[in-house]
Structure formats: C-alpha cells, structure tokens
C-alpha cells in the first residue's frame, strides 16, 4: 500500500512539474492583459552599461508601480540577435547596429544613445601609481611587442616610477564584446600596425603570446588583472572604479596624458557632432583634455510596437533615464550625455509608436 501510494505521489509530482511550467506561463500573459497598469518590458544586450541600466530600471520600477523591466547583460552581439529575432522588447549594444542589421528588422529600428563610457587600461603594479602610457607604448603592449615593464617606451614617459623588471601580462576579453569593439576601433585609428593586423571587431585575432591571456566578461578581466601582478587589460571605467584598480593615463590626440574621469569623458563627447541617425563614433576624439577611448552605448527600440501600452511605457522609461537617470551616471562610472544629445534623443522618441 505504502509503495503504491508513494508511486502515485511520484507520478503526481511529475505531472505537477510537467504542467506547472505551462500553467505559470499562461497565467503570466493573461495577468498582463487583465491588470491595466501591468506592463512588462524585457531587454538584453551590452554588459558594458549593465550596472547603470540595472540601477535605472530598478529605480524606475520602484517609483512606477506595475512597470517591470528585465534586462539581461548577454553582450552586444547577443542583444542585437535577440532584438532582431523579436524575443525581447528592446536591445542594447555598444556597437550600435550596422545598416545590414537594421535592414533585417521589419518593425523598424530606433537607436537611442543612452550614456557613454570610457574604456580604461587598468593595471596591477604594486607601488606604481599614475602610470602614463604613450600611444606607441600601449599599442605596442597590446601588439605583444612591448613585453617588459622596464621597456624604454614605458620608462621614458614615467621618470621616477619604480617599474618592476617583470613580464607584461596582457588580459583581454575571451568572449565577443562591445568593449573590445570600442577598444580595437581606437587602436585601429591610431596605429597602422594594429589596423593591418588584428583590426576592429567584437572579437579579433590577438597576437600569439604566452603573456596574452583572455577572460570572459568585464568582471572576468577585472578579476584576472586584480590577481595577476604585472598585468594590464582594458575594461569599462565603472568596473575599474568599483574595484579600485589603478588606471593608466593615456596620451590623447593632442599629445596630452589624460586620466579617465567624468570631465575627460565629457571633453571627448563635446567635440563630436551627433548625426541624425544618432550613430556617432569617437575612435579618436579631438580636444586638449579629451580621454581617447570613449564610446556611446545604444538602446535598440522598434519603431512600431504591437501593444501601444508597451511603447508608452518604454518611452516613459527612456525619458526618465535621459533626465533623472543622467544624474546618477557619474557615480556609476559613466559619462552623462551632453545637453544637445539629450535633446536629440528626446526628439527621436516620437518615432516610437
């Protein structure tokens, strides 16, 4: 008897498990239709602005009961893919979208730059602060040509710094990434050897070396730099700031060594004109105090939504991000958009229906 009961119980449990998946999903969608206020927006994409987006969406949901926003940091390429396949309500990408990619979306695409970020070179050299790297030095390091910290290319720019006689370990991204795209785009712009070698891309072929290691995602690279004496790698400014990693000041187009900061990021943005399609690239921004590696990051929205409530909610969220949201960009390690860009993006919202 006991045996029979328990097996019935198991069968029942299995049935529950099998069906609960379906039933919970169906109740989800009907719940959305029933309650007038409940709007759910799902998005995926870039991991570069994730800390900021996550905070924005959480704060917005808290202030606006019934609006739920889920954002998954899968990476820019995955974001574009999900967005094109229509599995999400919005996407996010550091590499915007190419003309081909835009053409593949039937409902139309509105790209919205939401914030900008700096890609910094973080390093792990105990006792060395304020490392200065000339353009030649940092392209040389990432090309695998400058291999020791005492190399004259580095030492000459840093008189008085106690540079260790140690191999340079370069840490790069293992996965396809918008951060890599921004970084390699800059290197291609300033170095012919780089442009003809690895080139620009979300993944590139890095030089063969035992001292170039790769880690997944921004946090993987950050962790590896923290744990490896003599390491240098490129990460988003916010990640370096959060983990208090030392950042190098880089030589910009004007020949000045500039530390990554809010001001140097804004200086870079202020000299670049935003075109009508809101896709502006800054491979090597001009300006005396401009930080050289800066990029906008975009939200990808459809021009037409089937559910007008969703479109309304999305526009309201974007408006919040463009106004109140910009005020917390800085503390999260991102560069607020210049006023005229905010105005242009706000105007572009009308295209979404």
């Amino acid at each position, binding site marked *: *008897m*006991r*045996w*029979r009961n328990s*097996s019935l119980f198991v069968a029942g449990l299995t049935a529950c498990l099998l069906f609960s998946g379906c039933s919970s999903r169906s109740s989800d969608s009907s719940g959305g239709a029933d309650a007038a206020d409940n709007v759910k927006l799902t998005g995926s994409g870039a991991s570069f602005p994730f800390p900021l987006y996550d905070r924005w969406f959480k704060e917005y949901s808290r202030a606006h009961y019934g609006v739920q926003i889920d954002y998954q940091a*899968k*990476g*820019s*390429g*995955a974001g574009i*893919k999900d967005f094109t396949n229509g599995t999400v309500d919005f996407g996010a990408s550091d590499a915007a979208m190419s003309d081909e990619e835009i053409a593949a979306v039937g409902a139309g695409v509105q790209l919205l730059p939401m914030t900008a970020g700096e890609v910094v070179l973080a390093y792990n050299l105990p006792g060395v602060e304020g490392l200065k790297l000339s353009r030649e030095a940092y392209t040389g390091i990432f090309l695998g040509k400058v291999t020791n910290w005492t190399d004259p290319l580095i030492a000459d720019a840093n008189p008085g710094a106690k540079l260790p006689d140690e*191999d340079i*370990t370069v*840490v790069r991204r*293992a*996965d*396809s*990434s918008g951060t890599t795209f921004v970084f390699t785009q800059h290197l291609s712009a300033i170095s012919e050897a780089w442009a003809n070698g690895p*080139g620009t*891309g*979300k*993944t*590139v*072929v890095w030089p*063969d*070396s*035992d*001292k*170039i*290691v*790769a*880690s*997944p995602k921004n946090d*993987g690279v950050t*962790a*590896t730099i923290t*744990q*490896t004496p*003599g*390491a240098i790698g490129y990460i988003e400014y916010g990640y370096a700031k959060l983990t208090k990693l030392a950042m190098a000041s880089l030589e910009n187009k004007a020949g000045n060594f500039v530390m990554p900061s809010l001001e140097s990021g804004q200086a870079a943005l202020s000299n670049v004109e935003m075109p009508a399609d809101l896709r502006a690239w800054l491979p090597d921004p001009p300006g005396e105090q401009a930080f050289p590696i800066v990029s906008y990051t975009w939200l990808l929205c459809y021009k037409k939504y089937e559910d007008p409530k969703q479109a309304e909610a999305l526009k309201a969220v974007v408006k919040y991000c463009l106004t109140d949201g910009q005020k917390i960009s800085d503390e999260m390690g991102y560069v607020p958009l210049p006023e005229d860009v905010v105005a242009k993006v706000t105007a572009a919202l009308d295209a979404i229906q």
Partner: protein
Amino acid sequence: MATSIEPNESIDSVASPPTTWDVAWDRAFRAMTHVFSWMTILLVLYILYEIGGKAIPAVQEFGFSFITGTTWDANKGEFGVLPEIWGTLYSSLLALAIAGFFGVSIAIFLTQDFLPAYLEVVFKNIVELLAAIPSVVYGLWGIYVVIPAIRPAANWVHEHFEWIPFFKTSLSGPGMLPASLVLAIMILPTVSAISRDAISSVPHKLKEAAFGLGATRWEAIFGVIIPASATGIFGSLVLGFGRALGETMALAMLVGNSNQLTVSLFSPANTLAALLANNFPEAGKQEEQVLMYAALLLMAITLGVNIFGAAIMRRASAHMKGATK
C-alpha cells in the same frame, strides 16, 4: 517489487496470488521504464540530429582542415580547432591523473576500516558535497585562491627546469595547470563515489579469505580488493574523464583562452567547451555553424572515450569474473 507488498484486503493470507491491480501496475511500471529508457536514447539522437543538422554547412565548407587548422578568426571566416582539441584532451588527462590518484585513495581510505563508521559517512558526504559547488564558484576560487597559491612554486620550477618542455614558460595567471587542478577537484567526487561503491561491493568473504591466507592489510587491498573492483574503478575514471572533457565555465575562466598549441603546463591554452561558451552567445550565422561543428567534435570525442572505456571494461571484467566468484 509490487507483488512483495500485500494489499490491505488480503493481509491475513500471506501467499495470495497477485491481484489484477498488482498485475496491471506491474505492467504499467514496466512500460514506463521502457518509455523513459527509449526517451533518453531518442534525446541523445535528437541532440545529435539538431547539432549535426546545423553543423552540415560548416562541415562541408571546412571539412578536415577544421580539425587540423590552428587559427580562429571570425572576421575573416577562418576556423580551426586543433589547439582546442589538444587543450581539451591535455587538461582532461591531467585532471584525470590527479583526480584518479586521489579519488581512488579516498575510496580505499573510506572503505577499508581506517575510520570509525560514523566518520566514514561524514567524510564521504564532504567529498560528495564538492559535486554540489557550481562551476562558476570553482572558477572564481581558481582565480582568487589557486592561481596565487601555485604561482611562486610554478615560477620557481620554471626558473630551474626551463629546459623541460612542460615548464618552458612562466605562469602569469590563467593557464593549463590551474585549470587542470580545479578540474581535478571538480571530478574528484565522481571518481571517489563510484570507486567507493565498487570497492565496498567486493564480497567481505574475499577479504577474509585473503587474511586467512596470511595476507597483510595492504596485500589484501592491493592484491585482492583493488583487482576485484577494477571494473568499477575504471568505470569511475571513464565517467570522470567524460565530465572533465565537457566542463565549461570554470575552464573558460581559468584556462586563459589562448589559441595556441603548447605542452607547457604554465601556458594559457583553450578547450572546446570554453571556446563554445565564450563565442556562442554572440556568434553570427557562419560562426554558429562552425561552433556547432566544434560541438559535434566534442561530442564525438566524449562518445569515443566512453565507448573505448566500455570496451576495455568489458574485457577487464571478463578476465576478472573468475576472481570475484
């Protein structure tokens, strides 16, 4: 099983024939086990079909040069996975050597009355708990604990024994050795749990007979117990190896993901599973097909190892049968 427990109504007559309900239930249960076994087989075939179907264009385009090629360039459409195949086998064999030694030692330690019975249970559970730790946690632990711990020793070895190819490079951080070490710990519970079962299923009489013939404890263990349970221990190694081949996240974090062919333990390398994990989420159409091809290769390697292992096990057990009975 169902007939051994009596229904309530016939509790007084111990040897009543099975009721219709018992028979029906017995049949239903048997049918169910058949269905589920076939579903498992069909699932494997379906996965093969799905991956194979998606890989066909890449297989046609790249063919055998995919296996012998050493570049991975998504922008130029040039793909080769020899370094990954090498890295997968190398790291797994290394991990298996470490985990095999420690896993079997633990299994012996926990079954041959070295400890009081209650402590055996505690130890066994602790070892098996290792299996419950998520892969990502192992990866982080590798980065924050294992690498800094082995770096001084590794670099000392590199400085003094540079002429040995295994130690040709210095360890900067992620690399083959830390990856294999962590991998070994990850497959340790599999190896030790199954070996333990195999060893403890050796009939007690056998050991007593060995003692009776004047064998010492260690002679009994190495001369009788281990050979008698060799099939099971070997099975644990095959399973552990299979798991090591497919391990993904911890390796993606620790192996260095560098596309090079090297025997140096301290060099960064790559594995097929890590390659898939890193590139799949953002792969374009062509790269996706190529990754499916790589996945197919990984499956083929794992399958090959399992078949090879099963074949050896069969031969070994045929040889062993006389000893155990």
